[in-house]
């Protein structure tokens, strides 16, 4: 008997992915850092470290803390800036046949729009817009926590770019589905969630925060149930594809997010712990489908039973 290989492909608008496994921004460098551990071309896509208009040196150390089943980070968006990114990082990214998603971040609406435009001539698969931490120039309201600003940023980036636009949402809000709806209304091709949850750790010996930045973003297996709940809520609310992120490290985690309504998923902190995990999960997902006689991964998406 011929055993057919299951169909792992998924689509985000017109963008066809070989499989739903992506790597999350800030946990996979520019891909090359993992080339010894993972065949990058087997991944659905890689999302590179967030890039800003001007270079950023990032926050002072200590920048990371290990917590129960998770980690806190306050890296501070260290990156070489768009000019250096385009001349030094982009050429090597073009060697990969998997989709390349560039994550962008700005301090102002204009910066997001400028970045979208600067990426027009590149061969990237999509832009992911990080609206999780930066502050608006005027008023100082965080972009990602105000539905109106989410809409404004999305619309501007949409108008100035010819690529699929993924809006990366912050979980540090009362109603994440409202943010997703605002992104959809602004013309987003997809939403990705969740970014890290704001957290803190204190050294009781010195009575000081363990992070130089005092607070930081919590990630890792500890946040998975929250991420899964938010993905499920957002998938009920919007029609655009949802990309699930948050503590994913096993095939079971991947399947849970797909069932909750995610079209694709991103591996984040797990890459830091097990550099080979992304490719392992592509294999693992294929085996899962084979073992359970599921012909296509699409059958799992939104497959949650009442």
């Amino acid at each position, binding site marked *: 008997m011929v055993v057919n290989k299951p169909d792992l492909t998924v689509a985000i608008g017109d963008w066809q992915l070989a499989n739903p496994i992506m790597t999350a921004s*800030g*946990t*996979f*460098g520019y891909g*090359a*850092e*993992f*080339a*010894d*551990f993972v065949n990058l071309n087997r991944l659905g896509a890689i999302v590179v*470290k967030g890039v800003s208009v001007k*270079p950023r*040196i*990032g*926050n*002072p*150390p*200590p*920048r*990371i*803390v*290990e*917590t*129960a*089943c*998770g*980690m806190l*980070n306050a*890296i501070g968006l*260290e990156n070489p800036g768009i000019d250096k990114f385009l001349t030094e990082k982009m050429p*090597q990214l073009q*060697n990969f046949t998997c989709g390349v998603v560039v994550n962008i971040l700005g301090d102002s609406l204009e910066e997001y729009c400028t970045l979208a435009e600067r990426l027009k001539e590149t061969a990237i698969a999509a832009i992911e817009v990080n609206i999780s931490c930066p502050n608006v120039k005027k008023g100082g309201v965080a972009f990602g926590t105000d539905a109106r600003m989410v809409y404004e940023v999305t619309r501007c980036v949409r108008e100035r770019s010819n690529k699929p636009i993924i809006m990366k949402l912050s979980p540090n809000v009362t109603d994440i589905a409202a943010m997703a709806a605002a992104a959809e209304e602004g013309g987003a091709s997809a939403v990705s969630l969740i970014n890290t949850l704001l957290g803190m750790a204190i050294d009781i010996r010195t009575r000081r925060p363990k992070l130089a930045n005092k607070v930081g973003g919590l990630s*890792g*297996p500890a946040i998975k149930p929250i991420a899964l709940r938010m993905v499920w809520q957002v998938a009920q609310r919007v029609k655009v594809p949802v990309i699930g992120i948050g503590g994913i*490290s096993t095939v079971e985690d991947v399947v849970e997010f797909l069932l909750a309504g995610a079209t694709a998923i991103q591996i984040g*902190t797990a*890459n*830091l*712990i*097990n*550099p*080979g995990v992304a490719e392992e999960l592509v294999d693992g997902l294929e085996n899962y489908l084979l073992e359970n006689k599921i012909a296509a991964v699409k059958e799992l998406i939104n497959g949650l039973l009442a």
Partner: protein
Amino acid sequence: MTMHAKAKHQLQGEIREISCRDEYCRMTIAAPAICHVAAAGQFVMVKPAADKSNDPLFRRPFSLHQVVDGLLTIIFKIVGRGTRNLAKMQAGEVLDVVGPLGKGFQLSSEPRHYLVGGGMGIAPLHLLAESINRQNPQSEIIALLGARTARELDAFADLQDLRFLRVELATDDGTAGHHGLVIDLLERAVAAGGRGAVYSCGPWPMMKAVALYCRAKQLPCQVSLETVMACGVGACLGCAVSGADVAGDGYLHVCKDGPVFEAGKIWL
């Protein structure tokens, strides 16, 4: 970066030997692919292969103490849950090992080499001494080792067996060698023996003193730094240290730019 032969590996390494005395442990792991490309000053990150608990989450980084015939040896002190779990492991059990990581020591062409180690920072100096000797068997190599007590220095007794190495000791409590700081030994050794290349690994105050002394004496100096680390491959940017010119250069990353740096490149 162009396509290249693998410089780093992730493998399942069987523990061949493990022995702990007090809180100091020595572990030898079968890791041929890593040993094949490893250099002095580089490190590996390990996690018990069977531990899927995610708690503790991170791998733990250890510098390479010895690399012989596909076996690598690490020496560590039990300081927290991660190292306690490793100390409980037994020969035959398997570690998930990633390495070799980072940039190791640059072997100087100077005829004389001073290896200055403090506490667990002594660990990488064994492989370094062997590498210097292999490059030039005529080299004069002097190890100046400091620790809190003689007990701590016992973990590194094997350095005394290297016939090409001259070893001098210092302890905080006077239980072995000079009763005082290892920097005293360096100053004395240079005054008596003359200029040489300096390599240092240990607590930051010790390395800072060594680096400042070398700067004053204009001796070439490399320091091997230790920080909290998550990925070890330059992706998370968590292991930042201040460059010599923070405003201009920003931060350096211990896992990728180091762990070994020219002392002049970092903020003292």
